């Protein structure tokens, strides 16, 4: 009797665990189905131009989401990421406008500013031991304030950026946009860092059980600090990409982007309690959100729906994760009880 029941149970359990594990695949499947429906309503959805535009826009969110994912895997959160992107974007655009740097120098400036701001977050959280939510809510206000102070009412127009700079976003290599290649490159490097290096394993260890990690002698302060610093660096890169994509930059650039970034990470299957998740998942999460935004416009719904959908997506993603986790646990306890 028991023998007849057990295989069914374990079969169901393994299905659930597969769904839980293969978040990337299930997201792609949902996108495929939704894409089919949308293309029936709006045939232009299926054009190559449209796809590459979605991917270019999503790659900015994706780059930021990679940093955010790393921080969330350590059981933290970075709410200041939109202010980092905005501040970097303004500084980069302004220094290009004043001809202080060439485009390569601009990229360097953006990365350095992002890294410094990330180190500020890392210092406050890892060294001063202020909880991430308070620290990054504070630096959100501080970084944005600095952005406003530097920018004032000034707006850097697209025309004052060097010719060809904004064109990078439209450039492609063998038909693939540069931004997408860049994102794929960062995902590959980042995934290698998390999967195959000591630092990467330490990131997961600190996130899944901080006490055990410190007992094992993992330098959790250093790991946490590095995660926030890297998050700042990637936010800096996203800031430079923001300038390239949008061109016209003022002190309010990237306001509200944190929600999209966190939504991408959560949808991408990163556990909000820390300790699990992949960078590829976060990037696909960003693509998923970009895809939804695009579908909304094509179907004719107003842009105002986007914010609500980000919220809904966050809530659905964490609730379904929790349901899967609970039923796996229940199945586990049942099978061990037998």
């Amino acid at each position, binding site marked *: 009797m028991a023998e007849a029941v057990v295989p069914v149970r374990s079969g169901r359990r393994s299905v659930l665990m597969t769904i839980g594990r293969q978040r990337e695949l299930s997201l792609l499947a949902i996108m495929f189905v939704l894409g089919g429906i949308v293309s029936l309503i709006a045939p232009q959805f299926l054009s190559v131009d449209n796809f590459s535009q979605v991917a270019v826009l999503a790659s900015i969110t994706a780059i930021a989401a990679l940093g955010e994912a790393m921080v969330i895997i350590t059981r933290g*959160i970075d709410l200041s990421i939109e202010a980092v992107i905005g501040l970097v974007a303004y500084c980069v655009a302004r220094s290009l406008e004043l001809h202080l740097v060439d485009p390569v120098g601009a990229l360097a400036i953006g990365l350095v500013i992002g890294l410094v701001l990330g180190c500020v977050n890392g210092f*406050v959280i890892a060294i*001063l*031991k*202020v*909880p991430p*939510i*308070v*620290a990054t*809510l*504070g*630096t*959100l*206000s*501080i970084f*944005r*304030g*600095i952005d*406003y*102070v530097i920018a004032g009412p000034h707006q850097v127009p697209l025309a004052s950026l060097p010719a060809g700079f904004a064109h990078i976003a439209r450039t492609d290599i063998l038909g693939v946009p540069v931004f997408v290649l860049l994102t794929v490159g960062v995902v590959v490097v980042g995934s290698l860092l998390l999967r195959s290096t000591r630092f990467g394993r330490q990131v997961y260890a600190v996130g899944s059980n901080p006490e055990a990690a410190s007992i094992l002698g993992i330098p959790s302060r250093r790991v946490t600090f590095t995660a926030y610093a890297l998050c700042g660096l990637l936010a800096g890169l996203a800031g430079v990409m923001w300038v390239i994509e949008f061109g016209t930059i003022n002190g309010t650039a990237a306001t509200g982007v944190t*929600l999209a970034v*966190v*939504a991408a990470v*959560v949808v991408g299957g990163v556990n*909000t*309690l820390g300790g699990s998740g992949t960078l590829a998942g976060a990037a696909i999460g960003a693509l998923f959100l970009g895809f939804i935004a695009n579908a909304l416009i094509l179907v004719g719904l*107003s842009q*105002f*729906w*986007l*914010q*609500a*959908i*980000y*919220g*809904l997506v*966050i*809530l659905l993603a*964490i*609730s379904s994760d*929790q349901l899967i986790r609970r039923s796996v646990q229940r199945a586990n306890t049942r099978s061990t009880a037998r």
Partner: protein
Amino acid sequence: MTATAKSPSAVGRAARSLVRWETLLAVALLGLIVMGNALSPFFLTPKNFSNLLSALMEVAIMALPLTLIIILGEIDLSVESMAGLASAILGFMWAAGVPLEIAIPAVLLVGAVGGLLNGLLVARGGLPSLVVTLGTLALFRGMALIVLGPRGISNFPPAFTALGFGDVPGTVIPWSFVIFLGIALILGIVLHRTWIGRQVYAIGRNAGTARYSGVRVTRVRTSLFVLSGVIAAFAGVILTSRLSSARADAGAGMTITAVTVVLLGGANIFGGSGTIPGTVLAVLTIAVMQNALRLASVSVEVQSIALGLLLILSVLIPTVAHQAKKVVDRVQRSRHQSADAIAGEHTPVTGIEEELS
């Protein structure tokens, strides 16, 4: 020996009550007022202070239930969006010809439903409140945008706009401040004088222990999120009244200030401690600080930097003080121990007493 051991701890207790966070805050508040008065003759003119208070009241009202939620060890980031949603729905209903006597209760009901959503996901779903309320922060704001779009509704009757803008007749006390004090009084009594408050503290200190002691943890958590939703919606109504305009982006950015107020008021972000009087004092402190900064013609932008610093410092200072206290304790203990050791080897007990005194 016992006498000498007792007297420092008694002194310590007195010192500790002297350096209670609320006392420090009250001293800082007085200091700011004295300094501001010396700097500018306009600093504490009643009208000036009244304007300033009424501009801060929506945040202050939101901060009251947020205090309870933070004591519980949770957080509600969605309050600013709930205020925006309340404003949008109020404007939408008013523009559609619904009288305010019906529209306002309806809006409060929306607040309750929104709060219930947060509460159920956190308390029953076992999900982290940070991420849940980040989700509803986006969801409620998005719903506000869907309801009202980019337009503003502004032809509200004067009786309504007096709620957020007017003063109690014959004084310069804004009505909204009276409402704030009323809610503070009720929540203060509930938190500090009833079994409900004791349950809130118990859950914040250790939810597991509280559950085994018979506290209905899920119910308390859910109800506090509902309360937070209703009061945030009410703050949205007051905001609409003060600006005489309903907008979907109403209240944007208020969450940071509300969290700053609660933490500056001495609540512990990890739960288990915090008081309503502390939050009230923090509201007054921030009002005075903003007034001082404005009179010193510090721009709003720099004020936002100051607010962020204040938020981090209000958590950092108690942590550092706690660490310092631990170090001092350890040093004292080791001195005691070495003194005991010396005593055991060479001298009778009376010897140390002389040494210590």
